[in-house]
């Protein structure tokens, strides 16, 4: 019967675990913060695919001007912070609608002949199709190229993703966003003049 002497022996590892836990917690927080900060300068996967394919198909050299990304965690922190602030309903709905969003701006490194936009668009279509995205809008006008991509499946007001490309001969801007449109839709439907146009359409 040496049970009393066993009890302290079993408590020691538990204390050590607590100690390790206390030491590891700040480290884990630091790592999470580092990942979060690194993610702020990295585009969403679909936008990266689009960027890589456009750069490759253009046959030109590009320079990164700026890349900013607000991931779900960052947006959540911003949303939590703004919940204490008095905001216009429109602004609040906009904040609530954004799940995450990112923008990347890239510039052509040299002043050579402009890349073939039709080739760029075709290459981008193929790359995005391989990821399950399709182009909803494509415009080539003058020196500009604009394309909007949406996922082939799983589009709803609650879960909307899109990826937008704008190229104006020298600069390429990529925007990716995911969000929940419901707060914005509710706000839009609450506007007095919103349905006036639709009433005429419905009567026809």
């Amino acid at each position, binding site marked *: 019967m040496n049970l009393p002497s066993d009890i302290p022996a079993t408590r020691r590892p538990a204390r050590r675990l607590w100690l390790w836990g206390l030491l590891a917690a700040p480290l884990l927080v630091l790592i999470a913060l580092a990942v979060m900060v690194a993610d702020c300068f990295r585009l969403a996967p679909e936008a990266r695919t689009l960027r890589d394919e456009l750069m490759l198909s253009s046959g030109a050299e590009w320079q990164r001007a700026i890349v900013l990304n607000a991931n779900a965690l960052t947006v959540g922190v911003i949303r939590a912070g703004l919940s204490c602030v008095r905001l216009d309903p429109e602004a609040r709905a906009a904040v609530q609608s954004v799940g995450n969003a990112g923008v990347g701006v890239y510039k052509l490194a040299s002043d050579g002949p402009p890349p073939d936009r*039709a080739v760029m668009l075709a290459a981008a279509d193929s790359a995005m199709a391989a990821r399950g995205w399709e182009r909803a809008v*494509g*415009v080539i006008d003058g020196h500009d190229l604009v394309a909007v991509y949406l996922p*082939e499946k799983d589009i709803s*007001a609650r879960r909307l993703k899109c990826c937008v490309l704008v190229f104006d001969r020298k600069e390429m801007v990529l925007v990716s966003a995911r969000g929940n449109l419901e707060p914005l839709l509710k706000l839009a439907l609450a506007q007095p003049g919103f349905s006036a146009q*639709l009433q005429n*359409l419905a009567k026809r």
Partner: protein
Amino acid sequence: MKIMIRYPLAIAILAAGVSINVLAGPPPGQVDFGKLAPADNGEFVEVQIKSNLLSLAAQLVEKQEPAAAKLLRNVELIRVNVIGLTDANRADMVKRVRQIRHDLESDGWDRNVTVQEKKGGDVGIYTKTRGGEALAGLVITVIDPKDQVVLVNIVGDIQPEQVAILADKLNIEPLKDIGAALKDVAPKDAASKN
């Protein structure tokens, strides 16, 4: 033994599902205009709105405007192509649009309206019926030999005069112009103006 039966059965059901999908093909009102590419320095607009986005638009208006939502739900696909004409592609594109019209007529599409203007503008509106009453699709072809060629395919039960509603609702600029022109055109008046 049960497992031995279950797996081949599951595979057979899956295979049947896949083959039915393959056999189903595109809906009857859908037209493949083929690969359309812009000419060098030419204008090019392509809008393709599928049922997923259309149902999202329908959700937007469902509570307050059920009729508009119903119209949107009747449509499965909207495709609009605008190809700017240059000396390099003018002849080819005009020939291609005429070929598309010819193919439509061969495939049982009804030519509802044909307008040939003195300046060379040429508009054709084609519809395909499904089961006698409902429309399966609508095709609008516009040749403006100086500027552009416009091809529109709307899959679903929609009358030509309702194009303006869709264009306004979905804010598709090239379709707005056509929609405005079609507002006064009765679908069954097979008019021809030479």
